[in-house]
């Protein structure tokens, strides 16, 4: 049997991602919409109508959240006018907000970590970046904020998560064909 070799060492390889937040990402030119759907028996059919209308108008939506009497969602800024027109033609009232951006923080196994939300909220609050919506997945928390606050928000988040000197990745929302 061979003797164990212990003298020679391979150079360090970083096998695993760091615990906690490891990157930030920005998606610019995003809009946010609040569409009233009521809280009566027709709420569900109005929500379905809303989704169908936007699908037929070839408008992808995301950060979708359901509230008691409204549905909120985000979309590419370029789609706002078409979305407003499509919804209005179906009698759905929408309030939209333009010039927003999604700032996302990325971490491995986000949902196993506690304290991420308070850290993000603290960082954004410290630079006056109001949160219009959030989304979270296993590896990211996405925050919809005013586009003009992006730089300050990224700076604050990088400071909070010790990512100083690291540039945020840029993402885009180019639309493709319907599903």
């Amino acid at each position, binding site marked *: 049997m*061979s003797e*164990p*070799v212990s003298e*020679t060492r*391979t150079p*360090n*390889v970083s*096998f*695993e*991602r760091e*615990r906690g937040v490891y990157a930030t990402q920005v998606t610019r030119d995003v809009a946010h919409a609040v569409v009233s759907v009521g809280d009566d028996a027709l709420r*569900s059919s109005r*929500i*379905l109508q809303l*989704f*169908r209308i*936007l*699908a037929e108008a*070839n*408008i*992808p*939506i*995301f950060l*979708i*959240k*359901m*509230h*008691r009497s409204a549905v*909120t969602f985000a979309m590419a800024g370029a789609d706002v006018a078409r979305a407003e027109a499509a919804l209005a033609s179906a009698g759905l009232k929408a309030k939209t907000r333009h010039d927003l951006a999604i700032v996302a923080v990325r971490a*491995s*196994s986000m*949902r*196993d*970590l*506690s*304290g*991420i*939300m*308070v*850290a993000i*909220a*603290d960082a954004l*609050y410290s630079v006056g970046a*109001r*949160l219009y*919506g*959030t*989304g*979270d*997945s*296993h*590896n990211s928390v*996405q925050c919809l904020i005013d586009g003009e606050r992006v730089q300050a928000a990224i700076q604050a988040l990088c400071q909070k998560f010790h990512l100083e000197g690291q540039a945020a990745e840029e993402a885009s*929302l*180019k*639309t*493709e*064909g*319907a*599903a």
Partner: protein
Amino acid sequence: MKILVQKFGGTSVDRHEHRILAARKVIKAKEAGFQPVVVVSAIGRSGAPYATDTLIKFLKDIDPQVPPAARELDMMMACGEIISTAVFAHTLQTLGYKAIALSGGQAGIITDREFGNARIQEIRPQYILRLLEQGYIPVVCGFQGITEPSDEYEHGAITTLGRGGSDTTGSALGVALHAVAVEIYTDVDGVKTADPDLVKNARTIPVCTYEEVAEIAHQGAKVVHPRAAEIAMDHNIPLWVKSTFSDSPGTRIAGEDAPEAVRRRLTGITHTGKIVYIRLEIENAEHKSQVENEVYRMMAQAGVNIYLVTFSPTALSFAVPRNLYPVARDLLDGMVVPVGHEKPDAEGKIATYYIFKFSEGLDLAYRVQRPLLKTVEKHIHVVDVPASVIENCTMVSVIASDHRRVPGVMATIYETLTNAEIAIHQIADSEMSISCLVPEGDVERAVRLLHERLFEQ
């Protein structure tokens, strides 16, 4: 040297007949000209005599009031893989092959000191490489490593890697050994479009990307642990998911730039989690963000992870894992968040105290706290924050690459579920998936219906 890492899960090594089937996969690779390096999990799943859960219970049963120290718990848990490795190496020896069992430390796997959830920092593969040169089949314990050996401190404490640790060992060894591929053997023949126990028409996906498989795994499918997928992705090591019990080709997991990788729009349907959804009504929009922050802070301090966070002008909603719901409820019930006013308001009041109320105020903490605040109401507003709770939820997810660029995905999902009268309590989406929070009792129906609509029509 064409090194092939082959990892076998608990059900692949739980019985002699299964170990023989697993050993045949190793021998087949060896005879095809590869140098196999085997990684094994502990024998069997929960309840089996040497399964990890059984070993933990053995230690905890000594005195249920005294939790075992993390270091000793790791040492105990590591025994499962050590037994499995010795048994598997001996199985190969009985079949006429030179095999040697190695603990994580003997295989050169160095981790940080986070017992129970250690991260691999370094792998020193020289010993394995020498064994391969000498014709051995190294059989390495999954799920474990050791801390950096030190003459001053400790000559390598045994650590375990946490959930999915054996898959992680497989991927990391693949990187360290510059393997041609890592094969993860399990009891299904690849990554499926849905849980085959729920959907009989679930298909095996021949090729998918690292991102897709990481998303599928995170959203509940137990084919390969996301940590292993991330390591393979970051180091571009080809990963396969195969069945020990069949000769099906399995699923190849590759980077987006691999020629055979298909950037599909819809990958699969998954389900995961026992979840409780909490909604807090916060009337004063001006103070809402401060109150929310305190909720986040309190949850963080208690180690309660929250997700599916939803804002509206007058409410904050979020989900917590069901096992942590009692903690969350105990924390929030009767909790008071004071918000000072910059100057006395029209009524001359200098602050607003928000007090959280569950069960219409019948819970103990609120009942005790609320009357105490009566004394300050002359100077301070006291506002109830009623909480409504939806228990027994689970998440059903559609894994859909790039759905944010494709209109209509949400409409299809919503229509499918609501037509079947399945309530959708909330929605969450990421770049790779759309998840719906549905009643736990409807989860099987939801998975079947979505699979039928999205994959069978």
